[in-house]
């Protein structure tokens, strides 16, 4: 089970990242859960400043941009 966390305070880009991540995880056919982290102090605990960001199993994979679905697939695997 992969834990996918979307870090962001709720701007349009964060929602887009959440959508793309879901799409990527579904097409990989893995078991996953998506959590949106919107609390700014929690986001800081990840060491992330440039939102949106994606963390896979607690490890930050990308910050400050929305990667393509293909790129996200590589990060999740």
């Amino acid at each position: 089970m992969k834990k996918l966390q979307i870090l962001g305070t709720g701007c349009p880009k964060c929602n887009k990242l959440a959508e793309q991540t879901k799409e990527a995880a579904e097409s990989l056919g893995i078991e996953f859960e998506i959590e949106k982290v919107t609390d700014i102090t929690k986001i800081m605990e990840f060491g992330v400043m440039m939102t949106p960001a994606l963390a896979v199993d607690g490890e930050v994979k990308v910050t400050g941009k929305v990667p393509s679905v293909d790129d996200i697939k590589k990060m999740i695997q």
Partner: protein
Amino acid sequence: MILGDLAKCLLRDFIMNFKKEFKILLLFAGIFLLFYFLPIENIRLQQSLVEALALTKWYAQEHVLLCLIPAFFIAGAISVFISQNAVMKYLGAKANKLLAYSVASVSGSVLAVCSCTVLPLFAGIYKMGAGIGPATAFLYSGPAINVLAIILTANVLGFELGFARAAGAILFSIIIGLLMHLIFFKDEEERNNNAPAMVLGADEEGRPLYQNAFFMAVMVGILVFANWNSTNETSGLFYFLYTYKWVITALFSLGLGVILVQWFKIEWWKILVVAIITAIFALSIPAYPVAAFTIGVAGLTIILNTKEGEPQDWLQATWSFAKQILPLLLIGVLIAGLLLGRMGNEGLIPSEWISNLVGGNSLQSNVFASVVGAFMYFATLTEIPIVQGLIDNGMGYGPALALLLAGPALSLPNMLVIRSVMGTKKTLVFITLVVIMATITGYTYGMYF
């Protein structure tokens, strides 16, 4: 047993749905009551409604095509092509302090293009980076000096006010940052010992700095000359520039075309086709240069959309700015028009009230404008039509600047977020400093202009 569970479940669903549905019912009832009692026959309301439409029409004619659209492309390019990691390096925990303050005060123009990134960046600089001084400096100047804000302020409210806003924000952000640092010097030392590490993405190989600078300069050139206003003079440099503004704009656009072919690897024939169509429009209907400009922008959009990689990323970022900001601005302009009207035509709020509260350049007017600005929430860029409406109703230029400085930097909702990041005491001191600094800047500016 099963039946009992089912009943419980149904009951719970009913209660949850009821809560949700009840909100919708309340909303409907509210809208119904509004229209039921709407005093539509009231002359003042009728005039104000016309004013709201007239102001929106003026924005649509004067500010959307030539100013906002190029500004979106510039903002999109900044967010895609300028490496934010490169900037953040100077705001890290080990960064040179002097450099950190200077970078924090101006980096909002590059980092704060989207207002929703300001608070996370502020929290990050505070908790993991250069500390409270640079963090508050960034928080104060960021929203005021992002490219879109500067461009629209200068375009709508005039060059002097646009320049004063940017310069005031940068200068006073450093002073506020330094004061915050001095006041909370002791806390800082303790906190620094257990700060989490900053995670920065890998530095990507971007294009060289000179190419980015040139690329941005060409787009700013297009923006500036397409909006060049006539002056009263009939000779001299400014008159010359005004007469040939479209020729100069066309030359800059040509430069952009060359850059797209050379550095972005766009097929040259695509650029040529768009350039020819644009030129045909420009030469056949010279009375409406806006038509040719629109065709050029449409062509650029199609070209960018058909090239994967950087060009598509750029277009996507541009489009997301447009999607985010245009609806807010439309609503903001309509409301500003309804409440404040235009020069010489009052809206719902009587001009007298405004000139009593924020007219002239008294200390009291400046304080009032700063305090209201600090607490009120302005959606991205809507502070501009509102300040414009206030000026038309007699607000002085000093208080206008005070409002522009204190307004976007602070609002009640973001005060709560700031408090959750650095605590009540520091937040209160920061708010006080912002109000004082905005008042001083406005008052000083008002004395000279």
